[in-house]
């Protein structure tokens, strides 16, 4: 299978144009999923079903998104673009909250987590998107979906990872350092002071992937967007400049989201009388 693809790819690259990926080509790449399923079965990972369902979902979701994007790009309505952004934000929030399922059995906590992560992502990603599209790229018209939708997707995706990591880490830090937190409280500390160190560690853990991303970009692998642009026939130099914008944008958006998320979420761990609230262990 592989040699066929490689030969085909090499041949078409030699023609110096963009290769059209046909449905037949997609069927051929599905062989790679079969390889993954085979390996999972051989090593008894139990991921066969996951790969299968995941592959089907990926196809369905991406094709659907493709059609939606085509519609968005041709319709050119500002309110359609805003609706798309809101839907993206809500999906990201939902995904971030889902990952905390085990810890959200306490009444009201789930809703609080929705509000907190949703708002943090809205603020962090919203400010970043507005800054990049309106001040840096100055897109015309201001709602140009070709820029707003994919850029917001990247920002929110990163912010979501940051928010989920931060929430998970803050919760586990507070749980494992209960004694230390209560020792601070017992000396008259405010909850913010008592949870300062766990909060710092949660923010750190959530942001270290962003730092690592900046450190290694271009060395280990080419980022997806840049790869896409190059494959689509763009000059690598322009692709690189876009990638720099994207990297800085992701760092800023994720940092804003994560810090806001932790400072706000940590309040839910304490009662008004500065007591560490009892909750279901993670």
């Amino acid at each position, binding site marked *: 299978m592989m040699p066929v693809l490689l030969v085909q790819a090499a041949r078409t690259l030699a023609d110096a144009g963009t290769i059209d990926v046909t449905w037949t080509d997609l069927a051929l790449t599905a062989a790679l999923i079969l390889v993954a399923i085979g390996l999972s079965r051989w090593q008894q990972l139990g991921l066969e079903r996951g790969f299968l369902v995941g592959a089907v979902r990926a196809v369905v979701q991406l094709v659907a998104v493709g059609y939606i994007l085509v519609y968005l790009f041709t319709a050119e309505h500002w309110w359609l673009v805003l609706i798309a952004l809101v839907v993206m934000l809500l999906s990201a929030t939902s995904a971030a909250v889902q990952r905390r399922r085990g810890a959200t059995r306490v009444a009201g906590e789930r809703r609080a987590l929705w509000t907190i992560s949703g708002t943090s992502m809205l603020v962090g990603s919203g400010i970043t998107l507005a800054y990049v599209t309106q001040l840096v790229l100055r897109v015309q018209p201001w709602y140009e979906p070709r820029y707003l939708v994919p850029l917001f997707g990247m920002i929110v995706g990163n912010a979501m990872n940051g928010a989920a990591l931060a929430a998970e880490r803050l919760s586990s830090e507070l749980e494992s350092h209960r004694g230390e937190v209560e*020792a601070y409280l*017992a*000396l008259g500390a*405010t909850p913010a002071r008592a949870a300062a160190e766990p909060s710092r560690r949660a923010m750190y853990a959530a942001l270290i992937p962003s730092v690592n991303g900046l450190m290694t970009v271009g060395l280990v692998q080419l980022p997806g967007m840049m790869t896409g642009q190059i494959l689509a026939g763009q000059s690598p130099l322009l692709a690189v400049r876009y990638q720099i914008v994207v990297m800085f944008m992701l760092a800023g958006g994720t940092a804003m989201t994560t810090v806001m998320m932790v400072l706000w979420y940590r309040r839910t761990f304490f*009662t008004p009388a500065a*007591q560490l609230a009892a909750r279901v262990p993670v």
Partner: protein
Amino acid sequence: MGPSGAGKTSLLRLLNRLDDPTSGDVQLDGKPITSYPVGALRRRVGFVFQRPAMFPGTVADNLRVAVELGGTTKPSESPPMERILAAVELAPDYLNRDAVRLSGGEQQRVSIARALMTRPDVLLLDEPTSALDPEVADRLLATVARVPKEHGISVVMVTHRLGEAREASTWTIMLEGGRLVEAGPTERLFTAAVNPRTRAYLATAD
């Protein structure tokens, strides 16, 4: 004192509002403790946990945190660290030691010193010797019996060890199953307990 699960720790935690009771109230100087700002209350009612939790940094850092958390308290109003350290029988050179690397007994002494830095009126001790070797525990207990007298502090200590209760206290409360079984002057309770459950508990080996 009382067996495991009697509610000893729960009771202590109510006394400085690490938890709130579902019914009833706790009073300090004739006023419900909920009428005091919670931070100020906790600085008047110090808490030493069963398992010492050292803050990152040196012993001096740990003691300094206790002072700083007071906020409005001027540094001159807090007792000198060396004197407090001496009270818990640690040499002054401990100030520069890494708190996390100290032994269990030393950490517990630092916990007591840290609690004393806020000049509390009451000190709550939750089985302070339970994580220690018997010999280390005995020496710590001697400190616990002596320090409060020197500093004019009332101590409420939780223990399930009979010897500790008898040696270190003037008044003993027997708890079992979340209820007060009997209370009285320690000597009378140990020699002439009225309640059969107290007598049964005292009859168990230490």
